[in-house]
């Protein structure tokens, strides 16, 4: 029983990691007043670029850098469309997801043709063994990126509440006119949020191709970006609560996988759907008290 719990907890942390990383990135971006629906496509293209760079250079860290750069570039594109041009954020974000997904899948075809088995890395990130052999081993032995993601939770939480950067970020997302009147460059803050957030979203994608799977497939993201957006709302735009949301989803997913493995007499489709259904329910409950950043979705323009 202890072993069962330990493996489920260990898997929970693993499965939560990409959602948490991307969710934290999205939190920063939304705090600045931008809903980045490009997240799903950004994760896919970042996972792909990271994979290709790691494979060709043989360096996993080069792959990570490429994935983060992908996130930054797509963040800048989102910024150009929604901040500089002031276009609709829904349309721009979905457009970026379509563009990035298309690019990733097209390049995948070009480079790997119709390979029947997904290409994989000769060596991917390994888990850091901690207390292995003890009952805590399966829980604590995680990828470095998982620990990074967990560390980022307090870091971003403090950055938002206790630093000048965070104060300005919140001001820009709540009342950009007021921020502008206070001499803050609203555009620059929004771009900054998109750059940092984009890098984190890229990391979230890279975790899947460079660590957890060590391979790239079409369906590698399969909705994790949308789940990240859901947990940002669930977490009321607070990093600690976003972590809670990521763990909830990851935990349900881990449990579901484990139950499948145990051979529970339920159709596996039902088990697969379980985390999503419960996420929707959790979101419906938590979403009732959600307090959106007041300027979310609103492009800022100084009149005159």
């Amino acid at each position, binding site marked *: 029983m202890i072993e069962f719990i330990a493996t489920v907890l260990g898997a929970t942390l693993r499965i939560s990691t990409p959602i948490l990383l991307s969710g934290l990135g999205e939190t920063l971006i939304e705090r600045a007043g931008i809903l980045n629906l490009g997240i799903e496509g950004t994760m896919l293209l970042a996972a792909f670029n990271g994979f290709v760079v790691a494979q060709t250079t043989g360096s996993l860290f080069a792959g990570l850098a490429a994935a983060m750069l992908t996130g930054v570039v797509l963040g800048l594109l989102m910024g150009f469309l929604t901040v500089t041009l002031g276009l609709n954020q829904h349309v721009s974000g979905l457009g970026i997801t379509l563009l990035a997904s298309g690019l990733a899948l097209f390049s995948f075809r070009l480079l790997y043709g119709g390979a029947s088995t997904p290409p994989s890395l000769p060596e991917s990130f390994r888990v850091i063994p901690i207390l292995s052999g003890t009952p805590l081993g399966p829980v604590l032995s995680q990828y470095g990126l998982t620990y990074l993601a967990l560390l980022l939770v307090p870091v971003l939480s403090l950055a938002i509440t*206790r*630093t*000048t950067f965070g*104060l*300005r970020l919140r001001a820009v997302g709540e009342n950009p006119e007021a921020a502008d009147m*206070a001499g*803050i460059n609203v555009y620059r803050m929004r771009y900054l949020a998109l750059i940092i957030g984009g890098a984190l979203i890229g990391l979230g994608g890279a975790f899947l191709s460079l660590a957890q799977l060590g391979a790239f497939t079409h369906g590698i993201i399969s909705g994790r970006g949308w789940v990240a957006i859901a947990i940002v709302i669930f977490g009321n735009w607070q990093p600690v609560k976003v972590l809670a949301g990521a763990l909830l989803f990851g935990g349900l997913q881990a449990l579901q996988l484990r139950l499948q493995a145990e051979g529970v007499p339920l159709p596996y489709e039902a088990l697969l759907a379980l985390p999503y259904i419960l996420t929707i329910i959790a979101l419906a409950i938590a979403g009732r008290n959600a*307090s959106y950043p007041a300027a979310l979705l609103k492009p800022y323009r*100084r009149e005159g």
Partner: protein
Amino acid sequence: MPVLEMQGITKRFGPLLANDQIDLTVEPNEIHALLGENGAGKTTLMKILYGLYQPDAGSILIDNRPVRFRSPASAIAHGIGYVSQHFSLVPTLTVAENIVLGYEGRSLLQRREMEQIVHETAQRFGFNNIPPDALVRDLSVGQQQRVEILKALYRDCRVLILDEPTAVLTPQDAANLFETLLDLRARHLSVIMITHKLEEVMAISQQVTVLRHGRVVGRRRTSETNPTDLANLMVGRSTAAVTRKANHQASTASALNVRDLWLQDRRGVALLRGVSLTVNQGEIVGVAGVAGNGQSELVGVLSGMIAPDRGTVEVRGNALKLGDPRAFNRARVGRIPEDRLKGVVSDLTVAQNLALEQMEDFSRAGHVDYKRIEQHAERLIREFQIKARPGDRARTLSGGNIQKIILARALARDPVVVIAAQPTRGLDIGATEYVHQKLLEQKERGAGVLLVSEDLDELLMLSDRIVVMFKGEITGRLDATTATPETIGLLMAGGQQDRQANAISAQPLSGRDHAGLPT
């Protein structure tokens, strides 16, 4: 030596010349009133001074040195402070956070230290009752305005611009504000106050610059002018004052009878708490109150847009189905909504908007007779002097003309009751007079008019009786002939009416009480 000079400032918005060669000189220790009607170009000029707009021509001198403000940051650096009409505060941040925003001084925020500095600044300028750790959204409007002023002072401003500072204040808060401004002047600050209220200019300023249609039409020392002179400058013609209909000609037959309305929002906060009132035929009843004390909800119920939790509404003795706009429409309740842009469909034509509430009169078996809609519109356009053609889309019209469409639609069918919510908000003097005259006409022909307004002068001028709302309740009922702005103001701020003595006692106000915000 003047502290500030603006010379030949010109600003165009498309075809509109908002500022035309404006000169403005402000001396040290001076409260300078910038007077003009809505749309005269006052706010545009000040936004140029604050770096929010770039002028097309003209120059700005501070201490005789030319400066150029590309953004508010450079204006702030030169000692300009600006309190806009819609406060530029972030409601979810604390007072201290709002004040230091943009000028934090370091990258890590020391909450304690930040609040201490803000507290000290507040003390230095004699601002009490501003807790640095409170969230701005929990403060009253008057307090928020003080936070805005404090913000400018924290940044060492030497010229403080206030845009219509009393528009949102109770008379008591306005009096406090004026004391503060005089105190700031004694501390060698200069103040530019945008206003269109003559009594404010006379009460507090030393110098007046009057704008009309984007031009300076007069400069006066306040000690050498008078309200009539200023009004004539401002309007460019002599205004016909609306005479108070003091003699109570109302019949005793009721037009509107509202009994015991209760309403809660989703969180269980009471918005209306047992509101009862009667409007007789041929009577105007005014509803006073600081915004957010239930007036909007009352109007919502009386327009049929909100179903209250409890209570009844009768029009000439017939109970109406609540929450059913059609029932109110059929009972001939003419409605002038608070937000006039919500009263018209902006993509429909003037004619269609005018017909909207009586489509059954213009259609047969679902087929609309556009010809008759057009004729109907032509008649109303003539009668209500709407400057538009029947085929113009509503969104191309000015605020005054949109309001006339709404008036025409509400009044054309000889309403039994008129619910007028903020009917003159944002209108210029001419349009305001027109609305007043129309409401008085309705009263004379025997309609019962409920007038909800934040403008006390308007209420005192038009109403026969005035009720005051505070926190969803009617806390005072006054005869308009004997009521004064002071008594109404006290009631608006939560004072109690002592029925026997007919006097009003103020109750001690805690911070958020007189904001009327849900606690």
